[in-house]
């Protein structure tokens, strides 16, 4: 079991410094890959970012790598030609990330190479890119993506973002904030703030919009709205009487599944963002809610208590009869498709609420977390891990778990953090 403490200090980017998420690997793997990320050679006069540190923290946060501490490094080569492979073998490092930064007119030129210590001729990954001023962290995340992919076979998600809802209580005042941050907790941006609840953030497939639920207490309404993250423009999708909730975009971004109850009880509807027409997908006097689209856009899963307790059902996007998918566990709620469409992550209740993974074909259910109040699972876009909410010492906090259940991290900050939604690949 390894422990990394990545203290993420956020000062320059935002006034909401309390939104800093701190990532801590609480359970790692014994088969971690030994790697050294050597501090990059070259100028970085304004001290914008320690790019090697960004890469190291990214890799460390996955729990899959055993990172060599800088003060243990015998040499700090900036390119393959400067590497003494034998020395690195003696300190049991298998892979080496080396690189250099040079100043250019508009910013920097960044080069990196991923080297196999035991096969000196091989360069496993490399690139040279121009990084404008202010984008060194981003460049570091891009390098981490390449290193992660070269060594694990899965695309890295270090350039993605997460959206989440925070709740702070100060002197009887409650404040909800919808925050979008880099996946490592940096650059948090508050995109909506309200004394009334904010719920159910959902990314558009292009990563440019968030749909979420807000409450207009003066009008006594819940409002499902879409916000352009770049421009801030907000558009109401539905503010009917009753529930306007559970937004979920279709994979092509054209449609949005949502829950409405103006007709008497919650059913799933499909909103066409082009024609702005609403079509009812499910018709059942029970609660039908929490829809999620299959990656091929052909079907949806949703929560329904039409059979008594809450269970997961599947329905074709074109409509028709719904088929019950879950039978194990007292109840199963809020399923989301994995990016490959083969499994569902869901919340299983019964003596606590835990995150489970179900193989859609075999219906085999695997409980991943221990509860007691885990919820809101959201897949990383590479399908390798989930972010979810658990109850921590000071209320709800975010956590991640690898889909094999072995690697766990906690993401903490002051106040409550909930309803994480992982962005698409960006």
């Amino acid at each position: 079991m390894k422990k990394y403490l990545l203290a993420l200090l956020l000062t320059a980017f935002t006034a909401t410094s309390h939104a800093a998420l701190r990532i801590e690997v609480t359970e790692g793997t014994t088969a971690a890959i030994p790697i050294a990320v050597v501090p990059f050679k070259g100028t970085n006069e304004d001290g914008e970012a320690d790019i090697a540190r960004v890469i190291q923290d990214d890799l460390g946060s996955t729990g899959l790598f055993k990172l060599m501490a800088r003060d243990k490094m015998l040499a700090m080569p900036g390119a393959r030609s400067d590497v003494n492979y034998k020395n690195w073998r003696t300190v049991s490092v298998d892979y080496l990330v080396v690189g250099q930064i040079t100043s250019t007119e508009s910013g920097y030129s960044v080069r990196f190479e991923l080297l196999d210590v035991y096969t000196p001729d091989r360069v496993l990954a490399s690139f040279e890119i121009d990084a404008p001023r202010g984008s060194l962290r981003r460049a570091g995340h891009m390098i981490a993506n390449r290193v992660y992919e070269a060594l694990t076979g899965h695309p890295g998600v270090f350039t993605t973002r997460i959206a989440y809802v925070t709740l702070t209580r100060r002197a009887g005042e409650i404040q909800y904030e919808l925050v979008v941050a880099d996946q490592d907790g940096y650059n948090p941006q508050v995109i909506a703030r309200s004394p009334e609840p904010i719920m159910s953030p959902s990314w558009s497939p292009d990563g440019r919009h968030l749909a979420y639920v807000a409450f207009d207490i003066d009008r006594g309404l819940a409002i499902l709205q879409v916000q352009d993250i770049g421009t801030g423009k907000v558009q109401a999708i539905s503010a009917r009487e009753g529930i306007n909730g559970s937004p979920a975009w279709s994979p092509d971004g054209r449609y949005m599944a949502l829950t409405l109850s103006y007709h008497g009880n919650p059913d799933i509807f499909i909103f066409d963002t082009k024609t702005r027409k609403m079509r009812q997908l499910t018709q059942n006097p029970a609660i039908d809610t929490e829809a999620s689209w299959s990656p091929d856009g052909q079907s949806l899963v949703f929560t329904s208590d039409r059979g008594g307790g809450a269970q997961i059902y599947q329905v074709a996007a074109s409509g028709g009869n719904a088929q019950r998918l879950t039978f194990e566990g007292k109840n199963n709620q809020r399923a989301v498709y994995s990016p490959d469409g083969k499994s569902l992550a869901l919340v299983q209740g019964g003596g606590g609420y835990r995150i489970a993974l179900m193989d859609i074909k075999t219906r085999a259910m695997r409980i991943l977390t221990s509860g007691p109040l885990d919820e809101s699972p959201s897949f990383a876009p590479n399908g390798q891990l989930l972010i979810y909410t658990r109850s921590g010492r000071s209320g709800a906090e975010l956590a991640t778990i690898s889909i094999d259940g072995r690697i766990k991290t906690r993401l903490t900050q002051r106040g409550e953090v909930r309803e994480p939604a992982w962005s698409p690949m960006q």
Partner: protein
Amino acid sequence: MTTFKQNWLGLVMIAVLGITVAGCGGKDKVRDDDAFPTYNEDDSNAGSTSGIDTSRLNERGLKGVESDDRRRFLDPNDPLSTRVFYFDFDSDRVRTEYMASIQAHAEYAKRRGSRVRLEGHTDERGTREYNVGLGERRAQAVQRLLAAQGVSASSLRVLSFGEERPQELGHDESAWSRNRRVEIIYERQ
């Protein structure tokens, strides 16, 4: 990604926009009674018609009640003082102990032509949007009883918060039992 930093000031403005759209424009005006229900702990004459500490309720939800009538809503011996109805676990059945209060509210609403909002709430167990559905069922159960007493459908509306606005913050049955509830809100006319 460069634009990230540059956009930041713009994003602060977005936040402001978000507020307006999220309907909290009148923040300063409504802040006090629209916050989570608070209870006056040192109210010593805690009496009750139903076993619930109705006298501890503040004036949240009384915006639509004429000031002459407020006294009744705050008098623990008046059935109108019960404005929060608690529910059993996993149940949307209104307890019989609340029937007298519901009847009193129905009569009052009819007489005054009040606009009444029924806010449904659940405990924290289960997923959030599903709980919004459960909270709505509870609010609808009270709505049906009021309608059955002759309150016009057009003056009744239901709003469910699910588990989003707990009355108590604990993670045990005593907190959960206070969070499974429906609140009667008299909306401003």
